[in-house]
C-alpha cells in the first residue's frame, strides 16, 4: 500500500470530521474492550502471567542474534528452508522466487501485517498468479482495494451493506444477512484453497529451540493455507522469535485474552517443518523468511527497542483516544494506534513520519493496557525528541521547568508578552538554539485579561 504517513495531520483532521467513522470506531473499540475486560476479570494470576509474557519477549530481544541462528539451525534440521531478507524488496524477491519455482498459479494468504508491510501481493500478482487474502476481513478489504484498519478486525470500517454491494460488484455473489455473506465467502475461498499451489502466512512466533512456527487464528484460513497447498511460506519479522516452547506457551496464555478476550484462539498451529513421511496432507515444502526491514537498527536504542517486544494483540488501539477518534487509515500505513505510531516511526524514513508521535495525548491508557507493559508514552516522547533533532531541546526543558512553578511561569510569560504581545517575534530571536523549533510547534493561547483583573473590573462595574 502507498505510505501516506506524511499526511497524518490532514488525514487525521479529515477523519475527525467523519461522523460515520466515529460511530463505527466507538462500537468497535467498546466491543473489544468489553470482551477483553470480561476475560481478564476471570484470569487467575493475571499479573504473573503478564510478567512472564513480558519476560519471554524481553529475553528473546536480549538474545536476538543467537536465537535467530538457533531458530535457523533447528528449522533447517526439521526440513524447513530458511531465508533472510534485509528489506522489503529482498523479501518480495525471495517469495516471488519461491512462487515461480513452484509454478504457483493460485496463492492463498493468511492474515499477516508483515506481508502488507513488504507489499507482497502486487509482487506476486506480477508473476501472473492469482493472490487471495483468505481471512474474511482481509478478503473484504482486498476486494475493496483498501488497507486494513485494525490489527484484529481489518474490515471494521465496512458495514454489512458495504459488503453486500462489494460481493455483488466484484464477485457477482448475492447475499443479505451477515451469516449469508460469510457463507458466500466460505464457498468462494474454499475453491481457492483447494486449487492453491502455495500458502503464504505471517508468524505470530517462531521457537528457537525447536525451529517451529506458531500461527494463531480463529477462522481456519491459516490452517487451510498450510494444509492444502504444496508449498507454505511463512514470512516473519525477526523480533517474533522466542527462546523456548515454554515461552511460547506463556505468550499463548496471554495473547488471545488480550486480543479478543478468548482463553485461546480457535486454532493455534505449531508447524515444525514440512509434512512428515507417510502423512497425506500439509505442505510438502516449507519456507521461513526472516525479515529485518529496519528492526535490527532499533535494537541498539535502549528506549525505542521496547516496541519490538509487541506481539500485536491490538489492545492499545482500542483504548487510545486518538485511535478511537481517527481510526486506522489516518495513520497512513498498515500499523495504527499507539504501537502503530511507534512501529511506523521506527521502520519508515524519519522524513515520512515526523508528525506521527505528536498525534498522542500521552494519557498513558496504552501503557496501562498493554499486557507486556510496553511504555508507549515514554517511547513517544523519545521519538518526539528525535524528531526535534535529538538530544532534547534546552528551551523545551526550560519551559517544562517553568511550567512546574506557576508563579515563575506567569512572570516569565508576562515579561515575554510585555515585549511581544502575540509571541510571534520569539521564533525569530537570534542566539537561542532550539527556540524557533520550540515556538513553531506550539500555538500560544490568545492573550487574555487575567482573571483577577476581570473580577476587579466586574466588581467596580457593579459598584458604580
Amino acid at each position: 500500500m502507498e505510505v501516506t504517513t506524511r499526511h497524518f495531520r490532514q488525514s487525521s483532521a479529515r477523519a475527525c470530521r467523519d461522523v460515520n467513522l466515529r460511530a463505527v470506531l466507538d462500537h468497535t473499540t467498546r466491543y473489544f474492550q468489553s470482551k477483553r475486560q470480561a476475560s481478564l476479570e476471570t484470569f487467575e494470576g493475571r499479573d504473573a502471567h503478564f510478567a512472564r509474557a513480558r519476560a519471554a519477549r524481553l529475553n528473546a530481544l536480549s538474545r536476538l542474534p543467537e536465537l535467530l541462528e538457533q531458530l535457523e539451525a533447528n528449522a533447517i534440521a526439521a526440513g524447513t528452508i530458511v531465508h533472510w531478507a534485509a528489506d522489503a524488496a529482498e523479501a518480495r524477491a525471495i517469495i516471488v522466487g519461491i512462487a515461480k519455482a513452484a509454478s504457483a498459479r493460485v496463492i492463498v494468504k493468511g492474515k499477516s501485517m508483515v506481508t502488507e508491510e513488504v507489499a507482497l501481493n502486487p509482487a506476486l500478482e506480477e508473476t501472473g498468479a492469482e493472490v487471495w487474502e483468505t481471512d474474511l476481513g482481509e478478503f473484504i478489504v482486498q476486494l475493496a482495494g483498501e488497507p486494513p484498519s485494525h490489527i484484529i478486525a481489518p474490515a471494521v470500517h465496512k458495514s454489512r451493506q458495504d459488503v453486500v454491494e462489494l460481493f455483488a460488484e466484484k464477485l457477482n455473489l448475492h447475499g443479505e444477512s451477515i451469516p449469508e455473506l460469510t457463507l458466500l465467502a466460505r464457498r468462494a475461498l474454499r475453491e481457492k484453497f483447494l486449487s492453491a499451489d502455495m500458502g503464504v502466512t505471517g508468524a505470530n512466533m517462531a521457537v528457537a529451540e525447536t525451529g517451529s512456527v506458531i500461527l494463531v487464528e480463529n477462522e481456519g484460513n491459516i490452517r487451510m493455507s498450510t494444509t492444502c497447498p504444496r508449498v507454505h511460506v511463512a514470512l516473519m519479522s525477526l523480533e517474533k522469535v522466542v527462546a523456548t516452547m515454554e515461552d511460547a506457551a506463556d505468550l499463548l496464555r496471554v495473547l488471545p485474552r488480550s486480543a479478543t478476550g478468548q482463553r485461546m484462539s480457535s486454532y493455534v498451529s505449531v508447524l515444525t517443518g514440512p509434512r512428515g513421511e507417510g502423512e497425506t496432507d500439509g505442505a510438502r515444502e516449507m519456507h521461513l523468511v526472516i525479515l529485518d526491514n529496519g528492526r535490527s537498527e532499533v535494537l541498539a536504542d535502549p528506549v525505542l527497542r521496547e516496541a519490538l517486544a509487541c506481539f500485536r494483540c491490538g489492545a492499545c488501539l482500542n483504548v487510545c483516544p486518538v485511535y478511537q477518534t481517527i481510526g486506522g487509515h489516518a495513520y497512513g500505513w498498515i500499523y495504527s494506534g499507539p504501537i502503530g505510531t511507534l512501529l511506523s516511526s521506527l521502520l519508515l524514513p524519519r522524513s515520512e513520519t515526523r508528525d506521527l508521535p505528536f498525534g498522542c495525548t500521552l494519557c498513558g491508557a496504552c501503557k496501562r493496557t498493554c499486557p507486556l507493559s510496553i511504555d508507549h508514552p515514554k517511547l513517544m516522547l523519545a521519538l518526539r525528541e528525535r524528531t526535534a533533532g535529538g538530544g532534547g531541546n534546552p528551551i523545551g526543558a526550560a519551559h517544562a521547568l517553568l511550567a512546574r512553578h506557576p508563579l515563575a511561569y506567569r512572570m516569565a510569560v508576562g515579561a515575554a508578552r510585555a515585549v511581544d504581545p502575540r509571541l510571534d517575534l520569539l521564533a525569530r530571536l537570534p542566539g537561542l538554539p532550539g527556540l524557533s523549533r520550540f515556538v513553531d510547534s506550539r500555538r500560544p493561547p490568545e492573550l487574555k485579561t487575567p482573571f483577577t483583573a476581570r473580577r476587579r473590573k466586574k466588581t467596580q462595574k457593579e459598584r458604580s
Partner: protein
Amino acid sequence: MSGAATESRAAILATLRKGVAAAPFAVPAPPARPASVSVTDSVSGDAWERLAAVLAPLEVRLRMAGTRAEAAKHVADIARERHASTYTRWDTALDGLGLDEALSSLTRLAPGCCQELAQADLGLALAHGALIESGSMVLVAAPGQHRAASLLPPASVILVPRRALLPDVSYLPALLVRHSVNGKLPACLNLITGPSSTADIELVLVRGVHGPGVLDLVGLDWDD
C-alpha cells in the same frame, strides 16, 4: 542460499550483535507460573465438568461415554444430528472403537488430497491433549492422523480419552516431546478451541467461516 541472501544474513546478525553489545538488556526474572488447574483435579471427575463448562460458551457439547459402545453410539447420534452422509476419520488412533460399524450407513472417505476430503460431512479425530483451562483440544498430525479431518468437513468430532486431560497450555512443550518420533518433533500440532469463527462483518459472530461450524466432543471416560 544465494550470495545476496548470505550477505543479508551476515549483515542482519552483525547489526543485531552490535545493538545488543551497545546497550545490553536487563531482563527481570519472571515470577513463577501460577497453577490453573491442579494436576490431580485433571484426572478426577471434576475435570470433565470444568472442561464442559469452559466449552459451553463456545457452543461445544461434551458427551460422556463410559464404554466403547457408548462412544460409538454418541458418534452415530452426532452424525444423524448433522445430517452427515460421508465421513473421514483418523485410522489406528480410532480403531477399536467400532466407529465404522456405528456409521455403516455413511460413506467413509479415505485420507488423501484436500479436494476429495472437502466432500466429507463429518470428520473424526482423537485428542492427544485436552487443556481444561482453555478448553483446547491438542491434535498431533502423523501418518493416519490427517490434518484435514478436523478442518475440511463442516462438522467435527473429537474423541477425548481420559488420559488426555491436562491442566493448561503450559503442557504444550511436554506434549510435543511426547509425540516426537526418533527425536523429530511432529510437523504439525494443532490446538483447537471451539469451532471456526469470525466477527469480521460488523463484529457479528458467525461460526464456520472456513473450518468446521460445529464441534462435538466425546469424552472416553475409562482408563486405557
